[in-house]
């Protein structure tokens, strides 16, 4: 590896993403700093409007006007492409295209909207391969089927030609994961990946993300509102409130001994905690 092990894969410094509206400037992300080491999982947790999703979308420069990144650095120390400050890349830069879906990929919350309804699932995964790698169509098909099998889809060969509406919610999320991981990203961003799923399906998908992460050695930025998911899946956690990180640390330390009043309030609002108090 060309970078010393002690330098984190992703280092976000004083990130500021604002929405410039006629009623004024809304600082959705207001000076956020965090880092993720190789192979680690950081959970960004907070309630609606805390800025966690805007932070995630900023990593891929997916913020649409009237929003924009107004300050800070997003340093990606890629083993494949060297050090990149994503915040500084031009909108049409080739490096940005390489980052999106290649070095960093994303799993979205709603698998039905993340997939195109008019293309077969195999086609959609193979497209990612053809965009980012020099391969033949036949090779892309082979890699796709291999990936579908890896995410636990039985009869992957037949599934290749099926459309999203023919699959269950859990199957669709497996397809989305296959699509995200097929190009071997160094960082996977998962934005509420199991919020739309039943609890038994959630358990399978979270287990799958953990297994594949270990196998592929990528880092994960997990966006969630669920402290249960944080406790079971992440190594580190950053609690967001009103565009800022109010508390940051190893999962066990933060959940067992929260220092910030907001973290404590959030944990106390959990039905399971309330039950214990009552």
């Amino acid at each position: 590896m060309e970078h010393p092990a002690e330098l984190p894969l992703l280092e976000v410094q004083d990130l500021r993403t604002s929405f410039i509206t006629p009623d004024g400037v809304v600082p959705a992300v207001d000076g956020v700093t965090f880092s993720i080491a190789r192979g680690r999982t950081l959970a960004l947790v907070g309630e609606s409007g805390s800025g966690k999703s805007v932070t995630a979308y900023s990593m891929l420069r997916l913020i649409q006007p009237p929003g924009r990144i107004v300050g800070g650095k997003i340093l990606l120390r890629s083993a494949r492409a060297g050090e990149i400050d994503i915040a500084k890349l031009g909108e049409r830069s080739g490096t940005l295209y390489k980052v999106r879906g290649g070095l960093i990929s994303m799993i979205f919350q709603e698998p039905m909207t993340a997939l195109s309804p008019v293309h077969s699932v195999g086609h959609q995964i193979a497209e990612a391969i053809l965009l980012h790698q020099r391969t033949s169509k036949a090779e892309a098909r082979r890699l796709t089927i291999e990936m579908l099998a890896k995410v636990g889809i039985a009869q992957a060969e037949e599934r290749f030609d099926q459309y999203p509406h023919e699959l269950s919610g859990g199957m669709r999320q497996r397809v989305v994961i296959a699509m995200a991981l097929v190009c071997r990203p160094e960082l996977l961003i998962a934005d509420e990946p199991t919020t739309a799923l039943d609890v038994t399906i959630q358990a399978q998908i979270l287990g799958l993300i953990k297994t594949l992460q270990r196998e592929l050695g990528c880092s994960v930025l997990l966006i969630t509102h669920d402290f249960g998911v944080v406790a079971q899946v992440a190594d580190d956690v950053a609690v967001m409130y009103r565009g800022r990180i109010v508390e940051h640390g190893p999962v066990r330390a933060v959940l067992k001994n929260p220092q910030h009043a907001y973290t404590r309030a959030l944990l106390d609002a959990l039905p399971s905690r309330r039950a214990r108090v009552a």
Partner: protein
Amino acid sequence: MTESPAAPLLAVRGLSKHFTVKNRGPGAAATRLIRAVDDVSFDLAPGETLGLVGESGSGKTTTARCILRALDPTGGSVLFQLPDGRTVDLAKLSDRALKPVRPHVQMVFQDPFSSLNPRMTVGAIVGEPLVIHGLARGADLEARVAEVLRRVGLKPEHRVRYPHAFSGGQRQRIGIARALIMRPSLIVCDEATSALDVSVQAQVLDLLKELQAEYRLTYLFVAHNLDVVRNFCGRVAVMRRGRIVELAPTAQIFAAPQHPYTRILLSAVPSPDPDVPMNFQVAEELAKLDAG
């Protein structure tokens, strides 16, 4: 039918709802029967909260809808005790006979965004049930709307505003006010707090508890979130594939689940305590359960 004083408010017996769906593809039979609700029975005592939990497709919402007669059940009975002591079978009443009964059974919906008409003021939304049933108008209507808004933690002056001006938690309070204004004895809450952030969810659950104590309400609480049910319900019925697989007091369901499906379901919930590991092998265990 004779009733003793200890009679349940609601007695559901052998309730079923079947749907016929068309099959596609060659070699398939033309139609197939989906047993969305399949021989479901339970009692609701006055003033209690029963949680109806299960995953998508388990039949919990269809059960709730059959009780409210938003759907016509295929079979079974839903015996409901009116405030005057008479008992009616909600499953068999005609639409006309149902109307005077409806005020006593109200519903709070899941989605605070789609369940409120964006073109109506909050006052019109909350007062509409009284208007439809011809129970109040004019100054009396205004006064009752203002009172119920205050009771759910909103301000009487909010009645001239439209739903878009309110947050998710406030909208859910509007939905609760609309149900409460009829002074029902039974409220069916269908995933009433699922769309809310945890801190807001806690406030809405607290409100529901206060209202229950004050008005002696009975809740049928349909939910997929086992954590919420644990704190809120006295008893829990676990549904899978249209049937109740287990019904027991909440503490017992969580401490000593009897049915293997309940055990698997509980083990899949990610605990916020890092020292309580969740079960990632759910798929294998469910497959084993189905194989018998």
